[in-house]
């Protein structure tokens, strides 16, 4: 019983094995890819392992506090920022191995030529509550 965050990157992850940019796939390949993603989330709901997820717009803004009575300072987006997150999903699973299995399943989404994309996904454990029995 542990929650994990699955992160999909626009940029910053190592290149996928099937490394063809999406704008060079056929429209049917794109549809098949998106359908796989939807079915994947539905499957996780059915197994009782889905907590939440969203896709993120690629363009964001950096914001910081700038002192009492002053408006927040904004900056960016920075084209050179290494890491750009495309979407997230949180799963609640019985083991780390199960989390790996599910991440691999998502990474197998079909891409160019109908072959699995084999993209790299980032898997991060969520902090849990501290256990009651600790000594």
């Amino acid at each position: 019983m542990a929650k994990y965050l699955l992160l999909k990157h626009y940029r910053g992850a190592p290149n996928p094995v099937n490394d063809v940019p999406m704008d060079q796939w056929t429209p049917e390949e794109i549809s098949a890819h998106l359908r796989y993603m939807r079915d994947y989330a539905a499957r996780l709901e059915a197994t009782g392992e889905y907590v939440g997820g969203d896709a993120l717009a690629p363009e964001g803004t950096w914001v910081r506090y700038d002192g009492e009575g002053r408006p927040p300072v904004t900056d960016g987006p920075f084209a050179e920022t290494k890491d750009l997150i495309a979407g997230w999903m949180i799963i609640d699973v019985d083991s780390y191995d199960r989390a790996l299995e599910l991440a691999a399943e998502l990474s197998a989404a079909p891409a160019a030529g109908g072959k699995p994309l084999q993209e790299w996904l980032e898997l991060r454990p969520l902090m849990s509550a501290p256990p009651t029995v600790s000594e």
Partner: protein
Amino acid sequence: MTLDATLLRGLTPGVLGILVRRGADFAAAEDAVQDALVEAVRVWPANPPRDPKGWLVTAAWRKFLDATRSEAARRRREDHVEDQPPPGEASSTDDTLQLYFLCAHPSLTPSSAVALTLRAVGGLTTRQIAEAYLVPEPTMAQRISRAKRTVSGVRFDQPGDVATVLRVLYLVFNEGYSGDVDLAAEAIRLTRQLATAIDHPEVSGLLALMLLHHARRASRTTPDGALVPLAEQDRTRWDTAAITEGVAILRAALARDRLGEFQAQAAIAALHADAPTAGETDWPQIVEWYDELVALTDSPVVRLNRAVALGEADGARAGLAALAPLDDTLPRYTAASAYLTERAGDLTAAAALYTEAAGRATSTAERDHLTRQAARLNTRSG
């Protein structure tokens, strides 16, 4: 009448057991009992029944029959009922026990067993369980219905292994998030109920362990949620009634001379509870109990805890020596190493270890505690 929800939920396993013995399949019976509980909450405040359990059985059975689609099926089941002997008191205890076995069946994953136990034995709603484990309600509903399908082929009167039940109850107690439902208190209630259904020293051991840890709950965190280590806890805030009860249950269990993991863990908790101040803790005896635990479980986590206890009994160097051969990727290995290193007097190394341990913590409360320890050493004067 004020409706005591806990009392109401205490009737759940008995009612469910009766339905199953009357021939209802487990999944449908469980749904029917949930519906009857909802109706009881609505109806009882204005019209309290004279026989609450009888009322629930009648209501749940009606819900079950309503849920069966065709009149033919209904008649067949009603005829079937006439053949059943009326369930007596003795079988109610057996039913409760069978329900624990079913909900902790080895074919279930731990999270499924926990969810099913809380619903079918504990009488909690799917929404309450979902909120307690911070997952959406539809996800928890799916988890529970899959669990029910998984055990649907298991015969209700098949004897189970009490150890699997204890593991599930321990998970509920130990890994619960804090929410609307007090999972630790619920785990204690369910373990207490199990102890009345089966006479087993490890059930007593687990109940004692839970009571002894629960007794310290108020002193374990500050009002803003920061962890307070055992040695720094305000012992006047410990629940002495719960400690007394836990110790008595543990004594009776140990007297039967069938030692198990939970009794040994409870014995350690009892020795902590027994010390008027942290300085008066009987560490040598705690180390002996850890030796028993190592013999029983051969768990690396137990060896780690033993090393810390040894550090208190025989000095930090002895603790570090016991820690050295263990796998340094064990949870809390670095935290234990930091603590013992500080006690051994190497404050600079200890500060670095606390920082490293904070980076490996799996809960924010532990991470923040360890970061504070590092900061305390890094900012010390002189």
